[in-house]
């Protein structure tokens, strides 16, 4: 009887890990609770404990091996006397149930990877200053903050775990080391207070970057964001501006359920005085974050936890920026327009690929990049060309960004529409915990394909 030790998932969004160190070797006796390995995740390096007992029969990976998928066997333990017998029998003995579970899990990774992480961003193809290496979105965000902090001493970062912990999602990694504790500040878990403090600092001339560990917690501070940050320029007759960036992950991660999986794009986009940006790739994350940091107005910068690991080429010019209020035509097409932003860009691209293969539909994809002020011109021009429109977004359906797009398009391009506009949103319910329901809740590639068939009247 042998037991496999599997690569554990050490965070909600971890799909693979690196084996930094073995703390056991072949032949060792292992008891439950013994430390067996150090695993590096997307967020940290963590020690893993054994839950089963026995002698280490085999280590299936060596130290330094990277990108080992979650749930892949990394070691085998068992009774040493049965070792040879077991090995001769079959290497991986499993009940049918286990195999099934593993298949489901494998499929889940496959879907996520295909839909999100393996899609290469296209926007940057024409950029002559592209980096040769690919970096992750989290690195792109980090680098941009560091570049701007080097230029302007008025910029400082505050938030929960941004300094000594290096960021809950490692987006502020090494910033404390470079810029010191006066400019990289760990706050207590006190959103209302430290957001108000940052707003006051911005009124007085500093340029805070405020990280919400996730935007779900920004609700604790929403009065300061809207009543103070967004409105004071107006209420002061133009005297007091508020140059601040509120940034952090927005929307669903993976199975963190109702209170930690909300999309705030339409909430903030409704507010005059705020600008709202939502990057979808490392490339535009760099360009947009630079614009946000240097903008004299309060900017809501909606990142996405699942996208933090997305790799892509970037423009490494320290002055490279993407203008606020400009959408990107991610893919040109003539048959229908998909307007989307943030993580749904990747799903929309996958849908477009399948629509081409299955129905020979040539889809145009617009990545909004900025939600407020929204680039209606690019959307309208696209609809005038394709005559069909789908909006795809993670937010709840009622009063979403897509709702406003539908309103403006029917008003300004009514005669160009050949079919009703269809919105693809998350389900109109709180986010469930169960992975099966979570999948149903979120817009999937199939939902986008269904919407595309409807607007093109394909049965």
């Amino acid at each position, binding site marked *: 009887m042998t037991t496999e030790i599997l690569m554990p998932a050490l965070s909600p969004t971890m799909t693979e890990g690196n084996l930094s160190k073995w703390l056991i070797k072949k032949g060792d006796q292992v008891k439950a609770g013994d430390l067996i390995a150090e695993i590096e995740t997307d967020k940290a390096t963590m020690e893993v404990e054994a839950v089963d007992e026995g002698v280490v029969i085999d280590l299936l990976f060596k130290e330094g091996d990277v990108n080992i998928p979650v749930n892949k066997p990394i070691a085998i333990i068992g009774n040493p006397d049965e070792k040879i017998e077991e090995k001769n029998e079959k290497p991986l003995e499993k009940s049918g149930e286990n195999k099934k579970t593993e298949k489901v899990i494998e499929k889940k990774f496959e879907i996520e990877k295909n839909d999100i992480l393996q899609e290469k961003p296209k926007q940057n193809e024409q950029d002559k200053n592209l980096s040769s290496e690919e970096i992750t979105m989290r690195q792109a965000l980090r680098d941009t903050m560091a570049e701007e902090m080097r230029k302007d001493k008025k910029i400082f970062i505050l938030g929960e775990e941004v300094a000594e912990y290096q960021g809950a999602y490692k987006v502020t990694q090494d910033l404390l080391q470079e810029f010191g504790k006066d400019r990289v500040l760990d706050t207590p878990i006190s959103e209302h*207070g430290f957001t108000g403090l940052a707003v006051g600092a911005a009124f007085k001339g500093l340029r805070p970057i405020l990280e919400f560990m996730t935007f779900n917690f920004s609700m604790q501070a929403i009065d300061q964001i809207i009543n103070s940050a967004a409105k004071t320029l107006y209420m002061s007759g133009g005297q007091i501006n508020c140059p601040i960036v509120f940034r952090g992950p927005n929307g669903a991660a993976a199975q963190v359920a109702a209170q930690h999986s909300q999309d705030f794009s339409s909430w903030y986009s409704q507010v005059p005085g705020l600008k709202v940006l939502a990057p979808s790739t490392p490339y535009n994350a760099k360009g947009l974050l630079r614009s946000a940091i240097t903008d004299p107005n309060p900017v809501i910068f909606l990142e996405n936890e699942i996208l933090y690991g997305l790799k892509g080429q970037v423009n490494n010019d320290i002055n490279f920026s993407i203008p606020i209020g400009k959408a990107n035509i991610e893919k040109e097409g003539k048959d229908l327009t998909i307007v989307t932003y943030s993580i749904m860009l990747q799903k929309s691209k996958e849908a477009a690929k399948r629509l081409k293969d299955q129905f020979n539909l040539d889809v145009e994809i617009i990545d909004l990049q900025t939600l407020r002020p929204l680039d209606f011109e690019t959307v309208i021009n696209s609809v005038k060309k394709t005559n069909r429109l789908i909006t795809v977004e993670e937010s709840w359906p009622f009063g979403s960004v897509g709702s406003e797009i539908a309103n403006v398009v029917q008003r300004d391009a009514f005669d160009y529409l050949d079919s009703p506009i269809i919105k693809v949103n998350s389900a109109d319910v709180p986010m469930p915990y169960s992975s099966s329901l979570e999948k149903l809740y979120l817009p999937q590639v199939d939902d986008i394909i269904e919407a595309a068939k409807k607007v093109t009247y394909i049965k």
Partner: protein
Amino acid sequence: MKKLNKNDYIKMYSYMLKIRRFEERAAQLYGMGHIGGFCHLYIGQEAVVVGVLMTIDKNDSVVTTYRDHGHMIARGLDPKRIMAELTGREDGYSAGKGGSMHMFSKENNFYGGHGIVGAQVPIGTGIAFTHKYNKEKNICRTYIGDGAMNNGQVFEAFNLAALWKLPVLYIIENNKYGMGTSVDRAAAGSDLYKRGEAFGIPGEKVNGMNVFKVIEAADKAGKYVRDGNGPYIIEVQTYRYRGHSMSDPAKYRTKEELENYKDTDPIEIVKTEILKKNFASEKEIEKINKDTLEEIKSAAEFAIKSNYPKDNELYTDVYI
């Protein structure tokens, strides 16, 4: 503390009187329909802001609540432009877009005028953070109403200010009522100045009807904060003669209570001292009274004559 001289006494008297006359005139204009919306008067509380004013450096910052007209006058701002904001005109400090509760003067380091109870407290703490970040010797005076002292963000701000040793002086203007609810009915443990104790913030209670007591406390507290010791709280016991806002008949308190406070009127206290010390004659005081009345009267005329904002101003100042 430096000894107050004749000029200081006259300055205190003039400012307190100017605030009183301004507020009376604002009430009149409100009654005539020239001022709309919410309008919160400072009558009775004049010794608080004027007392603190006597200890202030002009590069210090100030942030306060929506009961802000008196604070602006004490900051040396022009009563004409304050009144013009109340009437919603283009010459107002916020060009007619802020109104009574939302007035600012960045060049005078006056950061509002905040309409949301408690919101100015973290903001003032952040302004103090900036003074420290920029290594300036200035402090931020953050005024708080007694009502806000039950608001969570105030304690979050206290924690941050103490944790980061920020140069912020919290001044609680305890005028006994948060709208119609007395402090005793709203605050468990009514010594509001003690509410920083858990964070290690020193605090003290001061008689806010007596400007000399306020000066003494503000001077001591201001020095403590300016010397880099972190925040300090003073709770100033004061009283508003009028209701919470213009539309409040103040039926939650007795006439006797009001009359008792009027007997210790803060302006009268200063006037008596001036006469006693022979810093001015009755006649000279009379002249100050008359000049003040005239100044405020002309401010009201200015505010009524000033133009309404141009229509296109509706869409300006949303972004910079």
